[in-house]
């Protein structure tokens, strides 16, 4: 177990920069999730931490020791691959023990370590089988066992759950989280699934096109996204991003938004230094669907609130919620209502805008200003 420091790390293939200077610093025992769309460089970064890919520039340090030039086997890391990468010719037991064998661990110690891990992951009955005789979930378990048995400083997970079906994925997710809570190990985990990122991480690094967009706790990422990309990527359904203009109203900053049917709506913005003297400025208002709801379902966090009638275009019952679609600023805006809320498509319904958690982005740079 150890800390991990990534300092201004750059990856170039020829003239093309795949990673454009990444800075991440995590403490001992943290669960870092690298998340982003395909091609954002998250897997490349993981491979560089593992030593499977060279670092073009910058420093990667484990426990304060620079590892750039170290061979993967000398970095004291273990990796779980998306494809599991189990050796097909070896039994589960041999798969788990291979790393120990290569490190010259005596046979008796090896057997004991394998037995311990098998017990931890409840797969004692699988030890004699070949990988081809295992189900997807069992293979996943063996792949984790192979990483755990070495007790490395840092665990690396490369989209470990993406080959599993939906139900199993949720189960294994919980299991990984339990494992982390129990072992308190340092983990770097790559995924493109934002729910996995939210549920597992102690810290999330959102990446896009080789650049780190934001590094923060799941709460920070969710509540205070650094820019519209992070806001739109994290959360399901995603945050509503609405074109608006700052106006002064009753002595405080408000967001004026055009609507096709109901005319302009003026929403109060939270009092914030970023909006001082911002009247007239073009902004993008970020408001999560759960902050637009029906009056009965509204729970105010103490921020400014506005109640108004809106024309509901479509309703989508999801079970626990009723998602209502309204039009604002030329875009579809989702509101999350109670499942039995009185909202019908084509009719006006009363909605409550809880502006306490609203965020404001600059319309040009798309970075958060408030």
């Amino acid at each position: 177990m150890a800390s991990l420091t990534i300092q201004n790390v750059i990856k170039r293939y020829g003239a093309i920069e795949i990673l454009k200077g990444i800075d991440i610093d995590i403490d001992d025992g943290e669960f870092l999730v690298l998340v982003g769309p395909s091609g954002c460089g998250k897997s490349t970064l993981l491979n560089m931490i593992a030593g499977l890919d060279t670092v073009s520039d910058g420093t990667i340090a484990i426990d304060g020791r620079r590892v750039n030039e170290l061979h993967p086997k000398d970095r004291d890391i273990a990796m779980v691959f998306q494809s599991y990468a189990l050796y097909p010719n070896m039994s589960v037991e041999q798969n788990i023990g291979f790393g120990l064998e290569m490190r010259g661990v005596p046979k008796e110690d090896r057997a004991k370590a394998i037995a311990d891990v098998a017990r931890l992951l409840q797969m004692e009955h699988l030890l004699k089988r070949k990988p081809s005789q295992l189900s997807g979930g069992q293979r996943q378990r063996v792949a984790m066992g192979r990483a755990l048995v070495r007790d490395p400083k840092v665990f690396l997970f490369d989209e470990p759950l993406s080959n599993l079906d939906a139900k199993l994925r949720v189960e294994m997710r919980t299991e990984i989280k339990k494992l982390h809570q129990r072992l308190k190990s340092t983990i770097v985990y790559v995924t493109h699934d934002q729910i996995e990122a939210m549920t597992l991480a102690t810290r999330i690094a959102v990446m896009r096109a080789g650049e780190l967009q934001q590094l923060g706790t799941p709460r920070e990422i969710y509540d205070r996204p650094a820019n519209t990309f992070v806001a739109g990527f994290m959360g399901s359904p995603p945050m509503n991003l609405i074109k608006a203009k700052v106006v002064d109203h009753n002595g405080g900053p408000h967001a004026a938004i055009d609507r096709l049917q109901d005319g302009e709506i003026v929403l109060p913005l939270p009092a914030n230094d970023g909006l001082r003297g911002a009247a007239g400025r073009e902004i993008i208002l970020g408001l999560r669907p759960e902050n637009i709801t029906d009056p009965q379902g509204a729970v105010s966090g103490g921020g400014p609130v506005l109640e108004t009638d809106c024309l509901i275009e479509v309703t989508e019952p999801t079970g626990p919620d009723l998602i209502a679609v309204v039009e604002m600023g030329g875009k579809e805006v989702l509101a999350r209502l109670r499942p039995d809320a009185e909202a019908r498509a084509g009719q006006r319904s009363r909605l409550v805008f809880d502006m306490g958690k609203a965020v404001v982005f600059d319309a040009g740079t798309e970075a958060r200003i408030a």
Partner: protein
Amino acid sequence: MVPGPRSGLSVALRWLLFAILGLFALVYLFPLFVMIVTSLKTLDEVRAGNLLSLPPNPTLEPWISAWSTTCVGLTCEGLKGYFLNSILMTVPAVAISAVLGALNGYVLTKWRFKGDGIVFALILFGCFIPFQIVLLPMARTLGLLGLASSTPGLIFVHVVYGLCFTTLFFRNYYAAFPNDLVKSAMIDGAGFFRIFWRILLPNSIPIIVVTVIWQFTNIWNDFLFGVSFAGGGSAMPVTVALNNIVNSSTGVKEYNVHMAAAIIAALPTLVVYVLAGRYFVRGLMAGAVKG
């Protein structure tokens, strides 16, 4: 194929298909049949009867003669010495060329380097060089190396020539071999040869079988290199010896002995194919479909 009710026409077509296939099988088996029946007849019976007639009193005499007493050139000790020569040549040549091909394939797919594509293209080019072109330079090389007219010399020639094919086989097989396994083994602490020995090779059975069958058949059956580089010497392989038996211009033509000798010379490749053949098709198809 989905079994279902068949119409009269499809049954008729099916029987027609069987008939045609049967006919082809007969055409291909016909020479073997002639060889076997002839090899079991005495020379008088061969002269008296026709080609297809079964031996009236089957005898193994021609086989024994072919194996141990018939004359190859001036020595009259049968094929057995040359058969052994062929084994001593073929087994090491197959083993060495297969191992080197596997290593080449491993490096060309899992330890990529700048220009590896060109290296592979050049090796591949070697598959298309006709035997005849290399005869003179190879004879000179063997002479310089002091390997002329020797079994090690023939092994060397066959390894050099076979390398192109074995490299091609293994490269294409390993191109479809998951890189994650190699990466995982690297993290587990295995080095270059350990990854090869413990991870790659144990999972290469189908392509090893293909390579062994291919190389064994080619090297065992080779005549040109054998006659060129060990034609008169004691290292003569069985194919050249067979030719010398049949081409002996003195005395009577012992057709029964010739047939027996030809079958003996062809037997090892048949055995290898029968024993490993079921892997052959599987190996050629490997990687063609996912799963």
